C-alpha cells in the first residue's frame, strides 16, 4: 500500500512548482497556469485525506468538487480580464500593467 506521506509530498511539490510559476512568470496567462497547478495540488490533498480518513464521510470529495467549480470560475474571469486588457493595452506582460502603480 502507498503511505499517505507520498501523496502529501507530491501535493506539496506540485504546489511549490505552481507557486514558483505564479510568482516568477511575466506573462499573465502563465501566472494563471501556475495558479491552476496550485489548485490541483490542493485537490490531491483533499482526496488523499478522504481516502486515508473515514471513507464514509464524503467531505473531502465534496470540497474537491467545489474546488473544481471555483477553479472554473476563476479561469473564466481571469482569462476574460487578460483578453480585455490585451485589447486595450496591447500587452499581457504583468510588469507593464502598472496603471495603478503610484
Amino acid at each position, binding site marked *: 500500500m502507498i503511505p499517505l506521506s507520498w501523496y*502529501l509530498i*507530491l501535493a506539496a511539490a506540485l504546489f511549490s512548482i505552481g*507557486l514558483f510559476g505564479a510568482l516568477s512568470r511575466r506573462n499573465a496567462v502563465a501566472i494563471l497556469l501556475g495558479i491552476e*497547478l496550485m489548485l490541483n495540488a490542493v485537490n490531491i490533498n483533499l482526496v488523499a485525506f478522504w481516502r*486515508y480518513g473515514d471513507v464514509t464521510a464524503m467531505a473531502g470529495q*465534496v470540497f474537491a468538487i467545489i474546488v*473544481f467549480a471555483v477553479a472554473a*470560475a476563476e479561469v473564466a474571469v481571469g482569462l476574460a480580464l487578460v483578453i480585455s486588457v490585451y485589447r486595450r493595452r496591447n500587452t499581457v506582460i504583468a510588469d507593464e500593467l502598472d496603471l495603478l502603480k503610484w
Partner: protein
Amino acid sequence: MTAEQIIFLIVAAATLFSGLMVVTSRNLVHAALWLVATLFGVAVVFALLNAGFIAVVQVVVYIGAIAILFIFAVMLTRKDLRDHAPQLNKGWWSGAFVAVATFAGLVFLLQGWSGFSKTAADIPSGFDAVSQLGDALTSPAGYVLPFEVASVLLLAAMVGAVYVAFTRK
C-alpha cells in the same frame, strides 16, 4: 515494492516533470499542453486513490474545458509569444526561494504529524462512493448549501466573463 507503488512513483515523476515544464517553457502553447499532461497525471493519482468520479471530472472539466480555454487565450494574445524577452521576471530567484521554502516548510510541518505515514484502510465491501457523493451533495443534512453557492458563483463568473470580454462597438 508493490505494483501500486511503482505506478504511483512513475505517475508522480511524470506529473512533477510536466509541472516544471509548465512553469519553465518559453512557448506558452507548449506550456498549456504540458498543463494537460500534468492534469492527466493528477487524474491518474485520483484514480489510484479510488476516487473514480473525481478522476473523470478532472479529465472532463480540467482537460476538456479549462486547458482548452487556456489554449484559446494563448492564441488570442499570440503577439507576445514571438518576443524573445525573458519569460521570467527580474525577481524570479526570490520566487524560486519562496517556492523551495514553502516546500521545505510543508514537509517539515507534515513530518511532525503523527498520521503522516499511515496506510489506507480497505474500502468496506458494497460501499458506493459515487452514490454517497450524490447524497452528500444534495441532502440538506449534507452539503447542499455549498453546492448551491458554487452554482451561483459559476453563474456570476459566466456573466462577469461575458461582460468583461465583451467588445463595445
